[in-house]
């Protein structure tokens, strides 16, 4: 009977070092530690994660060296999320302010979401009015989770977000999970439909939302509507952020329908079956297992971990450290066999 696992303190978390894999190991895979001499060359401009003593440049964090033109910086392996324009992330509203929401995105400073950067209820092309300012809490309030994109960065590195696309917005029908942001592998797409009627959004900031796949058949259309929306928006907002504008075409009335108050509803779908609920939990525990072993997370690994977890019938057993390590090993072995 599973009641509790009590293990001795073990500070060497994760698997053996040979299996370790970090997301950010790019072309520059040299790892430095704080206080380590990086270069004596003075041509480099010193960026984040470095400090200078005399003419020598040292690292102030543990991480990988990043050289962009003449800018030398060290990207920390661990640490808070640093937003970048275009990141698909998940945030939690922590304050409703004057024509803006303050959003926790796991970064050093809270992000802002301007009232002008969301879809207003009742039609995407509507001009924002005075009453919108007063009804902001009806759209998003403290605690609400949203799926959004970093629109731009302020001088101090804090982010301005937007949800001006139908694929973004308020999250419901699922559960939230947070993993170290360095484990999320950046890819083209960060939302996936998985087997078992479950979908997932892997926020680049390490925030993850696992939810029931929406039943409406327009899910496939979402991509096209989204890009249409962004096309429309890019004109309206006058901000060109390098969108690859899609070729979908959807009537405006449809857009208006979908962006009604419904998108800000707090109500979950009725009758989410127990099967879907336990699938969601299984995915959650599978991702936890990957995070436990410090393995980078992407769609295929989630699927593999999910399948590996099937060997353990009970969901409860998936929280045991031993089982989590086994699952991670299965995933890594599976990758080796496939040669990926």
């Amino acid at each position, binding site marked *: *009977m*599973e*009641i*509790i*696992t*009590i*293990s*001795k*303190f*073990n500070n060497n978390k994760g698997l053996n070092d040979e299996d370790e894999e970090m997301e950010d190991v790019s072309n520059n895979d040299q790892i430095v530690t704080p206080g380590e001499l990086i270069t004596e060359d003075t041509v480099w401009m010193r960026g984040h994660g470095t400090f200078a003593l005399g003419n020598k440049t040292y690292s102030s964090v543990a991480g990988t060296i990043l050289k962009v033109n003449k800018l030398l910086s060290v990207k920390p392996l661990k640490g808070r999320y640093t937003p970048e324009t275009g990141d698909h992330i998940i945030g*939690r509203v*922590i304050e409703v302010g004057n024509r803006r929401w303050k959003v*926790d995105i796991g970064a050093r400073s809270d992000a802002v979401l301007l009232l002008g950067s969301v879809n207003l209820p009742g039609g995407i092309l509507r001009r924002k009015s005075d009453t919108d300012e007063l009804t902001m809490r009806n759209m998003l*309030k*403290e*605690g*609400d*989770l949203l799926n959004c994109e970093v629109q731009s960065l302020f001088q101090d590195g804090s982010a301005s977000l937007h949800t001006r696309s139908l694929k973004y917005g*308020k*999250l*419901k*029908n*699922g*559960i*939230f999970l947070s993993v170290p942001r360095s484990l999320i592998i950046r890819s083209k797409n960060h939302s996936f439909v998985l087997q078992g009627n479950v979908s997932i959004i892997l926020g680049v900031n390490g925030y993850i939302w696992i939810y029931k796949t929406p039943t409406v058949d327009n899910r496939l259309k979402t991509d096209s509507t989204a890009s249409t929306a962004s096309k429309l928006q890019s004109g309206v907002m006058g901000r060109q952020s390098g969108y690859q504008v899609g070729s979908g075409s959807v009537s405006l009335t449809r857009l208006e329908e979908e962006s009604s108050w419904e998108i800000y509803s*707090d*109500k*979950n779908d009725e009758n*989410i079956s*127990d099967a879907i*609920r*336990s699938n969601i*939990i*299984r995915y*959650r*525990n599978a991702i*936890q297992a990957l995070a436990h072993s410090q393995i980078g997370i992407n769609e295929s690994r989630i699927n593999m971990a999910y399948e590996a977890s099937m060997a353990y019938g*009970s*969901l*409860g057993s*998936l*929280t*045991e*450290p031993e089982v989590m390590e086994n699952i991670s090993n299965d995933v890594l072995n599976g990758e080796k066999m496939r040669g990926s």
Partner: protein
Amino acid sequence: MSFSVSEKDYLYQSLSSKTPIRPDGRKSHQLRGIEASINFLPNSNGSSRIRLSDGSEVIISIKSKVVKMSTLADLIELDLTIDNLRDDLTFISDWTNILRNSLLRNFADKFECLKLTTRYYFKLYVDVLFLSSSSNARTTKTDTSFLQNPLSMISFGIYLALKSTRLPLLISNSNDKDIEELPTFNDDWSSTVLLYPQDEDEEIKENNTTSQNSSSPPLLFVLSVVKNNLFIDPSIEEQEISDCGLVIGWCSGKVVSPIESLNLNQSGSSEYIKGMHGQNIIEGIKMIENVAATVSKGLDEIVKDGNNSVFMDSIF
């Protein structure tokens, strides 16, 4: 800062159904796994450290001091520190009270083991430091909404710490009723005695079953009630949507007081607080009766391991 309405609703639906699904997939009687070690503070008579998988951690130190007898209730002092929160917050002193009372009521041999002479006693100072996993999710210093109820975890820690506590061996006369003298002690660490004697081997235990050896420090279990379902050791999100909370004590094979209702919701919203049915309480007690022995056995393993290894350290 709080959870979103739909998150809470989803969770409540999951937990209140006939076949409840907990957010981390645990069975309703399954506790979260912990990592534990004892005797890691060289300056304390006993110490323990417990880490939960979510990163929260509890550190306990027990120190002793020789005092002249005043009242038995004064023989244990408990100090609880949580993160960097002010210690005069109501819930912190509530938790301190519950922990201290459970110790006082269920202390081994009714304090006989702390008795040195007819006049002198050992007084125990139990210092508890709880580091919550939410400390960096906190937006302000006074925001306690993400603080989970640590009673259960702390009581496990106190259990381990007390079982690892060693007190110096008295070498002066234990009867000082007529002649007053200050107690003196053997200053060799290897001749100290365990506050809670360890079962050296199984046979001895079987011989004198119900005597001293079976006594253990009390454990506390926190239960969350959602409709007709009970969940042991609720996680922070489960606490947030509980109809009601319940703390149940367990000591030496029996359910003991405190048996009290608790408010598990730290964020101050009361929309989910509803109360429970009488039947829930009975079920809760049954659940603890089934589960607690396993937990204390598991903790005893750590004690056995730790105490033996410490002994080795002190020899070499």
